[in-house]
């Protein structure tokens, strides 16, 4: 080993982007990064950023940072989606489209990875941080410092994905990197390593968050908040976080083993040397199927908050809603094999998993009916969260039915890896998870910023997303039935598929328009915020977060609420429980920069491993371990606020 490779590992000049579009992405990212750094310096905001945000252990601040990062990553994943649609609309017959086949493979791999791990998970943890402590009547989470570490590990993973734009390439093996394709023999570049380490690092953050929020909900509920008085969103978070702590260790193992194969030459999933690649597919889906319920349960929770509030009624069938959450949690570990019926596990195994898959649709159906029963005879206000809900309930039900179709193994043999499947899971994730999160952003935005978003822009955005979604994914169902498989970078002209792909492309353009309306809404609403001010309770809410000021003070509750009924704020006739003595002394955790430092060091470790720069990897790991130990030696981590 010579000196250069000792210092730089596998890095050399050839890792820079190779095509104009790749250069475009890299330059855009570098420019955007420099612009942000310049802006912060120009407006002298570094100290403010460090003191108020980076070192903050306030879950509300951390939640806003999660949602900001997720929003930025949504742009990144969205650009990938636009490129895919442009490629598939144009790459037909003699034309080869706008990007090369290998670049296209990177784009769809990055799209899936980013949208699940850095958009959906980011929004999810953002909401959990913002809402759960307030809803359960707590001033903080159980482990505030750990929470900061989780967030910065999430950021380190996101940064690693984005670095692959400029330095090296990204995985070409799909969002779940099946071996043997993802093994070193067939993916010799650093792409899969970027994928592995960005997920490993952010996954560790998710796991720690799971531990943190289960403990928070179990131990830190307000006095009187018995389990059957817990707000529905917090119930779904508890279910989702339980899935996190059960499922994410499996992901950790799976990624580690693939990394051992690639980096240390072991034989877990290789085609030779006694590896078993089918074991990878089982392991990754034993995590992967619970993962989709990790994402959807909190979205269900948001709708369970939104529908009662905007229908002016209590949630119908609260108990059955709680039971159905736990039925989903339980059943979600018995369906993973439906992702690969075609692997050849045999008729008996396939039948079992097919039945289980159909069964898990039942608790989901219970939820749909309960929301509709809540609306029935309610005084429905057509505010934006309600519009998102109604868009969701139609599309999600249709997508769910498509899922039940694919739960039949014989049908799945036809539909497996077709665009029908792609359309199905996008219906679940976009019109399920994402619409839910949009409803949540609209609903809770006034609480955390003290002013409302603009309804006209919001309505325009909603209709663009809804119509754009139908245009973008309706054709994919049809294409799938016509035999189009996923991940095609080229197809023959006489198949007659191009018109459908063009319609899908138009659909994405309409979605982009919807996104532009959302950004414009944010800019506009911030500018006119003095006219849109709201009080504690702009929506006539039911749960405790509406009992405190908007935005809430950092300690959430001046005196801790005492809960006497379900829908505590509503039941207290909007007074009583939340007000109280104002002469308390409240202790809160002091700020700490160590979370961000750990994130940065772990990022260096990940980058070092990806490029085999071993001194850097060792430095990052050692630094992170030392920082953790230093934190455990800290005393006096509290400060007291006198009210």
């Amino acid at each position, binding site marked *: 080993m010579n000196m250069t490779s000792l210092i730089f590992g596998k890095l050399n000049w050839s890792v820079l982007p190779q095509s104009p579009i790749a250069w475009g992405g890299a330059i855009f990212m570098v420019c955007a990064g420099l612009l942000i750094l310049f802006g912060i310096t120009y407006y002298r905001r570094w100290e403010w950023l460090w003191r108020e945000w980076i070192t903050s252990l306030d879950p509300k601040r951390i939640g806003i940072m999660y949602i900001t990062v997720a929003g930025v990553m949504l742009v990144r994943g969205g650009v990938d989606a636009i490129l895919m649609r442009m490629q598939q609309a144009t790459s037909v017959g003699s034309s080869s489209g706008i990007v090369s086949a290998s670049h296209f493979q990177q784009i769809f791999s990055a799209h899936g990875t980013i949208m699940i791990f850095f958009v959906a998970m980011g929004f999810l943890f953002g909401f959990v941080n913002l809402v759960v402590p307030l809803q359960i009547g707590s001033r903080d989470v159980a482990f505030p410092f750990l929470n900061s570490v989780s967030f910065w590990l999430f950021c380190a993973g996101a940064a690693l994905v984005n670095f692959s734009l400029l330095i090296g390439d990204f995985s070409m093996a799909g969002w779940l990197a099946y071996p043997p394709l993802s093994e070193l023999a067939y993916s010799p570049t650093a792409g899969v390593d970027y994928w592995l380490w960005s997920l490993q690092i952010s996954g560790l953050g998710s796991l720690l968050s799971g*531990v943190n929020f289960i*403990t928070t909900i179990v131990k830190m509920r307000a006095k009187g908040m018995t389990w059957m008085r817990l707000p529905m969103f917090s119930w779904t978070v508890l279910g989702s976080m339980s899935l996190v*702590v059960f499922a994410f260790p499996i992901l950790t*193992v799976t990624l580690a083993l693939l990394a051992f194969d690639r980096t240390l030459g072991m*034989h877990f999933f290789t085609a030779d040397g*006694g*590896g078993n690649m089918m074991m990878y597919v089982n392991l990754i889906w034993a995590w992967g199927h619970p993962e989709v319920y990790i994402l959807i349960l909190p979205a269900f929770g948001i709708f369970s908050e939104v529908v009662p509030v905007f229908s002016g009624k209590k949630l119908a069938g609260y108990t059955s809603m709680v039971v159905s959450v736990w039925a989903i949690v339980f059943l979600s570990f018995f369906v993973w094999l439906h992702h690969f019926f075609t692997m050849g596990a045999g008729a008996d195994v396939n039948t079992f998993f097919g039945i289980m898959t159909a069964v898990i649709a039942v608790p989901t159906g219970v939820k749909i009916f309960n929301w509709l029963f809540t609306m029935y005879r309610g005084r429905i206000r057509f505010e934006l969260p309600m519009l998102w809900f109604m868009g969701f309930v139609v599309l999600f039900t249709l997508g769910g039915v498509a899922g039940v179709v694919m739960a039949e193994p014989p049908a799945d043999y036809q539909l497996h890896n077709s665009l029908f499947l792609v359309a199905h899971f996008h219906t679940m994730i976009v019109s399920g998870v994402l619409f839910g999160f949009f409803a949540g952003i609209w609903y809770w935005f006034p609480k955390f910023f003290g002013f409302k978003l603009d309804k006209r822009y919001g309505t325009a955005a909603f209709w663009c997303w809804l119509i754009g979604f139908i245009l973008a994914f309706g054709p994919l169902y049809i294409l799938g039935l016509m035999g189009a498989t996923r991940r095609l970078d080229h197809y023959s002209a006489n198949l007659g598929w191009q018109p459908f792909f063009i319609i899908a492309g138009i659909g994405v353009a309409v979605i982009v328009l919807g996104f532009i309306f959302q950004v414009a809404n944010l800019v506009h609403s911030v500018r006119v915020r003095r006219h849109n001010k709201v009080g504690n309770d702009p929506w006539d809410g039911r749960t405790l977060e509406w009992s405190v000021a908007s935005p809430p003070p950092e300690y959430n509750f001046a005196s801790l609420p005492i809960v006497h009924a379900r829908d505590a704020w509503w039941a207290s006739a909007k007074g009583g429980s939340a007000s109280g003595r104002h002469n308390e002394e409240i202790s809160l955790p002091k700020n700490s920069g160590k979370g961000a430092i750990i994130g940065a060091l772990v990022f260096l470790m990940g980058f070092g491993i990806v490029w085999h720069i071993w001194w850097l990897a060792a430095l990052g790991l050692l630094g992170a371990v030392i920082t953790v130990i230093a934190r*455990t030696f800290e005393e006096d981590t*509290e400060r007291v606020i006198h009210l």
Partner: protein
Amino acid sequence: MSDTVLTHDEKVTDSTVVLGFWIYLMTDFILFAGLFATFLVLRTNTVQGPTLNANLSFALVETILLLTSSFLAGMALLAARANSVRSLMTWLVLAGALGAAFIGMEISEFTRLVASGNGPTRSGFLSSYFTLVGTHGLHVTIGLLWLIALIISIAMRGLTRANMRKLVLWSLFWHFLDIVWIFIFTIVYLMGAV
């Protein structure tokens, strides 16, 4: 700080911290479950390489070292409850010494295998063997580092409430590694010997 104000440490009562740590331990169990499953799938994939040829007496000595170390950790906790820092430190150092001896034996076994050309890259079986046993070994090593930090912390500040809590968590971790080892002894070594 007035006497009436509870610090955050006290508010987030020790039971909350212990619950959080238990949940973390459960996630670690699942991590090991994944590795056990991998081992069981790959254990026959030896690719003309060696089978384990388990040296049962060697593994038995390792087991005795680790279990005794766990027992000593229990003695340390009793000493701490009796507020006897001196005997607490003695028990901790002894527990750590046995843990280090365990790690030493494991390293010697790994080196012997690698030196004879049967490292983790030799076959799927050996990959899974090294990873399963090695992950446990890594946990024990982390436990030893944690123990050193704990001993330093107790030497610096005495048996404060925070140190007491750390001691409880560490001993939970140490016992947890015993349980995992029992499974390794059974599934890897005993099943490998029959």
